């Protein structure tokens, strides 16, 4: 008898623990803050984000938490660095960003508490973040803007405009200079007829089938724009492992090492079995490439383009 009572009590406790506060939570719909209040002044700033949500702000955001390295770089680039109060663990550029408080995130889990405690008036999420974190933060009454990844340089300029709009900065000069730099590369590439075959290595931990980048990625976009042909373009999927045999057959004339920071060296690549027949290895055209430039969809994509064009066409860019 005693045990039965105990079970029932326990179940009851569990039930109450779960239900009681839930009633509290539903009484105050936190999402109301996100939409512009009906009948009052319409919000000054309004933009549709990558999840199709309309995000509205009365005034430009002044307390911003960035949830992705690319977002942090965008914020600093538009001049909103002073408005950033929190960043994800991996945001390490520009140097000043490292001094900003981290809210976690390198294992995929952010500290929701830390984000709320910073009292941000805008959380800038990216495609790197799961929609669940957007939902969680939205339910806590925060304003979240989910920035979609750019698929072209035009998308990048648009993202910069959006970030400028949300933070109250004029980005005309920034975008003009980025456009001018891209155009300068385009003009030098256009007359060239030779398109070197390029292999970009993401991760060569397994040299028999290194990870590379398929069609539609930033790296693929950059290689094409810099006047090269991406070996991985024939692969299915955005990130894939390519067979060493396939690679030797494709015979790239340039190898870019996105994994140079992780211990892969030019010498170790040249020493891989069977790779000595590859043109790039014979000509010593193996270059380390800063992966942050090419895989973070921020303003440094333009730096990556210039760097890549210089490596692909050394004679033209001196």
């Amino acid at each position, binding site marked *: 008898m005693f045990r039965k009572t105990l079970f029932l009590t326990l*179940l009851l406790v569990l039930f109450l623990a779960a239900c009681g*506060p839930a009633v509290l939570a539903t009484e105050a719909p936190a999402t109301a803050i996100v939409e512009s209040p009906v009948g009052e002044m319409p919000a000054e700033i309004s933009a549709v984000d990558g999840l199709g949500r309309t995000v509205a702000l009365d005034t430009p955001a002044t307390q911003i938490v960035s949830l992705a390295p690319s977002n942090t770089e965008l914020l600093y680039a538009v001049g909103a660095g002073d408005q950033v109060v929190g960043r994800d663990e991996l945001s390490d550029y520009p140097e000043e960003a490292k001094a900003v408080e981290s809210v976690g995130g390198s294992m995929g889990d952010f*500290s929701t508490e*830390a984000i709320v405690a910073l009292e941000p008036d805008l959380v800038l999420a990216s495609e790197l973040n799961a929609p669940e974190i957007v939902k969680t933060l939205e339910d806590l009454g925060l304003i979240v803007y989910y920035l979609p990844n750019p698929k072209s340089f035009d998308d990048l300029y648009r993202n910069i405009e959006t970030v400028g709009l949300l933070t109250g900065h004029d980005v005309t000069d920034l975008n003009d200079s980025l456009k001018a730099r891209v155009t300068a590369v385009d003009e030098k590439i256009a007359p060239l007829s030779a398109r070197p075959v390029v292999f970009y290595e993401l991760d060569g931990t397994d040299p028999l089938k290194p990870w590379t980048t398929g069609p539609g990625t930033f790296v693929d976009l950059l290689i094409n724009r810099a006047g090269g042909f991406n070996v991985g373009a024939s692969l299915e999927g955005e990130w894939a492992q390519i067979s060493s045999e396939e690679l030797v057959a494709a015979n790239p004339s340039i190898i870019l090492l996105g994994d140079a920071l992780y211990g892969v060296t030019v010498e170790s690549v040249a020493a891989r079995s069977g790779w000595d027949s590859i043109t790039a290895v014979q000509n010593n055209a193996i270059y380390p490439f800063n992966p942050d430039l090419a895989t973070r969809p921020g303003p440094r994509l333009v730096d990556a383009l210039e760097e890549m064009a210089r490596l692909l066409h050394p004679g033209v860019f001196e």
Partner: protein
Amino acid sequence: MIFMRRVPYLSSFTILLFAVLLSIAIGSVFISPAEIWNTLIGRGAEISTSILWKIRLPRTVLVILTGSALGISGASYQGLFRNPLADPFLIGVASGAGLGAVIAMSVQWPYSFWGLMAIPLAAFITALLTVFTVYTIARIGHTVPTTNLILAGVAVSSFATSLTSFLMLRSSDEMRRALGWLMGGSIQNGWTSILAILPFLLIGMSVLLVSGHALNLLQFGDDQAQQLGLNVTRTRATILIAASLVTAAAVSFSGIVGFVGLVVPHLMRMWVGADYRRLLPLSLISGASVLLFADVIARVVLAPQELPVGIVTALAGAPFFLWVLRRSKNQGYW
């Protein structure tokens, strides 16, 4: 004598209470005990109200539910299979749930309520489907031999696991999301997830809590239990369904949290002996406490980063369990 019987309950409830207090008091943001008290009685600052009521408490409750579900279903599985290696994931709940979650993650869902529920829902359904498949394969006529069940479970699990890995490698999506889920990182905060799993947990746990006597009889072997008046086939099916339901509901939002369901029943068995009428409720209570402690570690050890709790349960749980096993004078407890 009555007092002696109550001691394990009293102490495990005390430990649970302590774990709950710890879980509410400790987070990556420091809130003073006075402020916590004020907030709990409704007089706190807006920020601490938000953090406590909307972040920490729902998390604490979800951890309690997950831990208790894993504890009690682990004890039930061990009794059902008469096997000390049995854990709640033995016949495919974890691998099935993982497969469902990764399938759901590979699809771009619209940002809506059901879009966000797709992952836990898919995990829940495929977990149950996997168990059902294993059960169907293992069945011979009206009986389901234990060996068949374990072998079919292992085979189907590895099939589902490799399919999961394949999908993860194929998907262009962020792999950390899937990896985090498979290691016990919860994907969504708030009270919605708790309300969603609560009915399944209440039904399943109630069935298991009254199954102690039947599990005791099953320890004599199926034939003996049958002679003692137990409908073995039906009892085993009922316990299996209830335990699977509870586990599937628990992992659907919390991800795959390993080790709790294996270790907690063993610790309880060392403590109070092999009577399932006490083992089941005690595993339920202590499962919650153990997971709460693990969760507190997961959120402070690298703060403000948070670790998936499954890493902590295995990393801290395994050595602790081995230590207890060595120290236990009652080696023949099983």
